[in-house]
């Protein structure tokens, strides 16, 4: 029986119905959209003819807020953009401010190493969320608990070092807020010891799973040329065969001294993106092991007291330190006028900050280059010709975070 013979009443989810095609509204409260994403899908039977993602449901004006905060305060709000990997946002922003200040080469080595270690930890934590929720989208619920257990341990490390689990604001302009607490590295050792067996379990559970393979192989194919033209970065680009990684292409914070590889695949489908992310987690762990073995001693904050707050213990005994601390907190510091683009490799691709200073103690403009926005935009391209049931797989394999897409 064709659609025209028996007209059904239009429900809230059906936007339009014509002879053969139907326009459906998927989301914004759909559980598989990993946030608040609405996709207006035009389907012919089961096949997607056109997909148009509607974003903006989570727009909170973080860029505007950051313009109205001190340079030192803005790093707190930029962490809220990519909330699954807050440290890579903070890292990109802070590296940009340090370039404007001209203190990039004065950052102590220990601070740089710890920053990189924490960023790689948060990359693993972020990929854990992607793997867990991506599995749930396909009905593989058990993997979720293994992933979140691993992630919890990384969040515990965040809490131990920075005091907060999700948004520690531990990276500061000029270095780190404090040195890591005693016992932190032992906890890192514990994590390293439990990581590889856990990943073997997860790979056994998910990677060779025939149901998952059936759902992901040859779904949402994104070729290299399309990926480049659509501005896709990160694992989605590397799964299309382009080995572009900011950590290798534009090394920062000592990545050039570390030994790691960029996993790539050439298939460009959802399964390739899945494998690239799994391999990336192992590479991140390799980086963490190297940093753990070669962690330098010394201070974790730049020596220039213009940009570094006085040590807390001096505030109680020194009037000058008290005044300095008061000025640092109440007025921050001025940043020389100029503009800079500061990219890092976040878990979702190139996270860049275009910062403009007019010489004031507040940023004039904080523009984020959100990797998720461009990765999600390509859904318009890859969804065409796929089954409507595979929309869930494609959205999951692109791994958008809506704090970052909508900002």
């Amino acid at each position: 029986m064709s659609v025209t013979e028996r007209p059904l009443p239009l429900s809230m989810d059906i936007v339009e119905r014509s002879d053969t095609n139907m326009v459906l509204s998927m989301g914004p409260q759909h559980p598989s959209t990993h946030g608040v994403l609405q996709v207006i899908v035009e389907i012919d039977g089961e096949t997607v003819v056109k997909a148009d993602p509607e974003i903006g449901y989570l727009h909170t004006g973080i860029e505007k807020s950051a313009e109205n905060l001190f340079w030192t305060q803005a790093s707190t709000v930029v962490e809220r953009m990519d909330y699954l990997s807050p440290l890579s946002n903070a890292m990109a922003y802070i590296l940009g401010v340090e370039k404007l200040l001209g203190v990039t080469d004065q950052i102590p080595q220990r601070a740089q190493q710890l920053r990189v270690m924490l960023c790689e930890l948060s990359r693993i934590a972020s990929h854990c969320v992607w793997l867990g929720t991506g599995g749930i989208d396909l009905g593989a619920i058990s993997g979720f608990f293994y992933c979140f257990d691993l992630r919890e341990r990384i969040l515990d490390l965040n809490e131990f070092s920075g005091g907060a689990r999700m948004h520690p604001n531990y990276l500061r302009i000029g270095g780190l807020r404090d040195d890591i607490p005693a016992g932190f590295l032992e906890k890192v050792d514990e994590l390293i010891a439990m990581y590889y067996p856990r990943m073997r379990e997860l790979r056994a559970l998910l990677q060779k799973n025939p149901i998952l393979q059936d759902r992901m192989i040859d779904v949402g194919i994104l070729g290299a040329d399309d990926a480049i033209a659509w501005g896709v970065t990160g694992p989605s680009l590397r799964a299309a065969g382009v080995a572009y990684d900011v950590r290798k292409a534009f090394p920062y914070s000592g990545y050039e001294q570390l030994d790691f590889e960029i996993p790539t695949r050439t298939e460009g489908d959802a399964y390739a993106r899945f494998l690239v992310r799994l391999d990336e987690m192992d590479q991140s762990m390799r980086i963490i092991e190297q940093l753990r073995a070669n962690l330098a001693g010394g201070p974790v904050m730049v020596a220039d007291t213009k940009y570094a707050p006085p040590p807390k213990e001096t505030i109680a005994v020194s009037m000058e330190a008290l005044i300095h601390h008061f000025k640092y907190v109440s007025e921050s510091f001025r940043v020389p006028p100029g503009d800079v683009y500061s990219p890092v490799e976040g878990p979702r691709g190139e996270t860049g900050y275009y910062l403009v200073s007019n010489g004031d103690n507040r940023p004039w403009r904080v523009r984020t280059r959100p990797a998720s926005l461009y990765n999600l935009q390509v859904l318009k391209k890859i969804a065409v010709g796929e089954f409507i049931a595979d929309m869930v797989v494609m959205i999951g394999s692109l791994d958008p975070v809506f704090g970052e897409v909508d900002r």
Partner: protein
Amino acid sequence: MPSSQTPPAGSTAVDPTAVRPPIDDARIVRTTPDALRAELLALKNDGFAMLLDVGGVDYLERTPRFDVVYHLLRGMTAARPERVRVLCGVDGPEPVLPTVSDLWPSANWAEREVYDLFGVRFSGHPDLRRIQMPDDWAGYPLRKDYPLRGPALERTPRPSFALKSNVAAGTPVFGKTAAALQRQIVAARAAAADGAESLAAGQSASEPGAAKTAGGASTTELAHEQNAARGGQLPKDGAK
């Protein structure tokens, strides 16, 4: 924190790109709206295959007022990848630039966002709608003359018994604010019930069951009312 309803202080018309310190992050190309498309097309033909981002900056007192910033990348897997930043000044009450979404599809959403948040239009764009803000929004939030918390719209008036000043006016000398508030709530409910009873009088004849439940509810309310009228004390369970 500055006042939430004023543009930030220190809004100087400095062009930071003219006085920037030597930071080796990208080659910078400055262009004009007329030459923009030719410039970007030449760069694309020169190998800059990826348009990473399109962003806007509002310099408020500078002429031209806005900068639209294009970040380009080439040689992603080469030994020395290269970045170019194209800055295009644009001015006027209705700033317009040519679109590049036909050259790089990634520009589609980025240009929509610049239009949404800065009000810079892109001629030839296939789908120039607001992307982050609601479609019926007035104003462009990332402009510097747009207040931080949005325009001061008229607020929805609150019910009078919830207003603090009204509570204060009815407060006894020794300040039993909660009791005074309770009395006002009772009075407001009674006033509402007067209207509802006259409305429900016609319906109760046809639906006795419904009338009974409604009556049950009102007796409870009555007990509260009587309690409040007697001593003005709140019931025990409501006093926590």
